[in-house]
């Protein structure tokens, strides 16, 4: 798989990362290096091997259905650039 500058631009846009036009070729090249490494991993035969999801035998930790958190509007909004009447306030987004 090869990443061209158009794909690099699209990925940057989807990730909301601003990349200047002249930086795109280098970015695409970096992607290709990473993907090249991944492709190298594809050479390993993993037939019949279950994907490993943890290095130690672990079970997904569960919580009970109790309200133990919240009621901290001030803390939640503390780092907001703009907050009014308990809401985050952001530039208008309308469907």
């Amino acid at each position, binding site marked *: 798989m090869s990443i061209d500058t158009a794909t690099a631009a699209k990925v940057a846009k989807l990730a909301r990362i601003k990349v200047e036009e002249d930086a795109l070729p280098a970015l695409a090249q970096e992607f290709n290096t990473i993907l090249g490494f991944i492709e190298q991993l594809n050479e390993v035969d993993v037939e019949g091997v279950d994907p490993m999801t943890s290095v130690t035998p672990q079970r*997904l*930790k569960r*919580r009970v259905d109790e309200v*133990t958190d919240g009621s901290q509007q001030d803390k*939640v909004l503390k780092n907001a650039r703009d907050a009014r009447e308990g809401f985050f306030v952001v530039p208008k*987004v309308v*469907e």
Partner: protein
Amino acid sequence: MLDQTFETPKPKVIAGAKHDWELVIGMEVHAQVASNAKLFSGASTQFGNEPNSNVAFVDAAMPGMLPVINEFCVEQAVRTGLGLKADINLWSAFDRKNYFYPDLPQGYQISQLYHPIVGEGEVIVDMGPGVARRVRIERIHMEQDAGKSIHDMDPNMSFVDLNRTGVCLMEIVSRPDIRGPEEAAAYIAKLRQIMRYLGTCDGNMQNGNLRADVNVSICLPGAYEKFMETGDFGHLGTRCEIKNMNSMRFIQQAIEVEARRQIQIVEAGGTVDQETRLYDPDKGETRSMRSKEEAHDYRYFPDPDLLPLEIEQDWVDNIAANLPELPDEKKARFVGDFGLSEYDASVLTAEVESADFFEAVAKDRDGKLAANWVINELFGRLKKDDHDITDSPVSPEQLGGIIELITKGDISGKIAKDLFEIVYTEGGNPAEIVEARGMKQVTDTVAIEAAVDQIIADNPAQVEKAKANPKLVGWFVGQVMKATGGKANPKAVNETVSAKLGI
């Protein structure tokens, strides 16, 4: 075993300018799990709280916060799956669906794309006595809800509340088996009913706890059957997805409007674009949500913060063993055990609370009579006062008492209605009220005979007329009923009058 024989309803046909067209509909229903806390945090799910007060740092996506799954939510998804007779996957996993929106602070929604917790099931959607549509369920997965944006508080800014962010949703995905707007509404109603029986989702559509994305396409008659045979979507038209609807009425309107829009395009020689649309109930039209199109590349990948969700067969079996009786089974039992019509059984089983109420009334009493009284008198009266069955002023014991008095012949049907009104407004024990207020039906022949004799003696002219015209017997019966304050047994009065007049 439940009798599942039924006829399939006819698909909805819309006449275009050139052809008749059929509709093909599939739905993705989002049902909020009725839990106390969120799917991955300990914040409350309570509706209507102060904005941003039901928010843990996990929900606000503060750096370093990690999700921990709420086991109750997992159980509710499994219960729902079992209620839809679906396969339960003992191994499922969570994925990240990546997109940017102000009410999604993580920048991704945790969902289950590749390995959902519930696999294939089915819902039988009743469309009238003996007529039903079997809608196949493709999957149910768990996912996080997003927050809420409010756009009308400021001309230039949107206000964001994260209280709903991270609340557990079950997304129930159907196959394209629904064939008309009415079926779509009936499908949601049936899902809602089943989940309310199970207690997994409260089904409150107004609060957005149950909402649907509806996929609509059109096809020529016969094409759908080919699709069903081959599984080839090429036989169907291009579908459009109408997003996020939480009203049965709007869902029906939107489907009809969208189908007509597609018919117009195709008949004019155009092609339908596969896209996401929004229904505008004020204008009665659907419009494209272009912004969603661009972001459609969600770049799903397994969530590295969460291990796969492994559950044990024993645990699932235990949930299965404790499932309540579901609507289809209950309805069949009401028809079989109480001799109710399918229609009455449907009405009574629509809500589990109504069904329980009816059963308490009907226990050891006349089932049909109990059904009549619950449906016609009680439901009618509750509706008039805008009451729910759960806050009925008349208890099952009281209504049962009234029914016993009717069955014993102590009161007539008419008096029973008066008695019902007294019990409804004033309360009290029906038998005692009847006794105290002298409402008992007079079956005593001596008393009836005396009353009949009196009326005959007072109306010699009418007696002559009645001998010529036997229909006038009714007039005498009426007079006797009046004289006895409606308490005389009408059948006994009728017989006595006829005998005395010799007709």
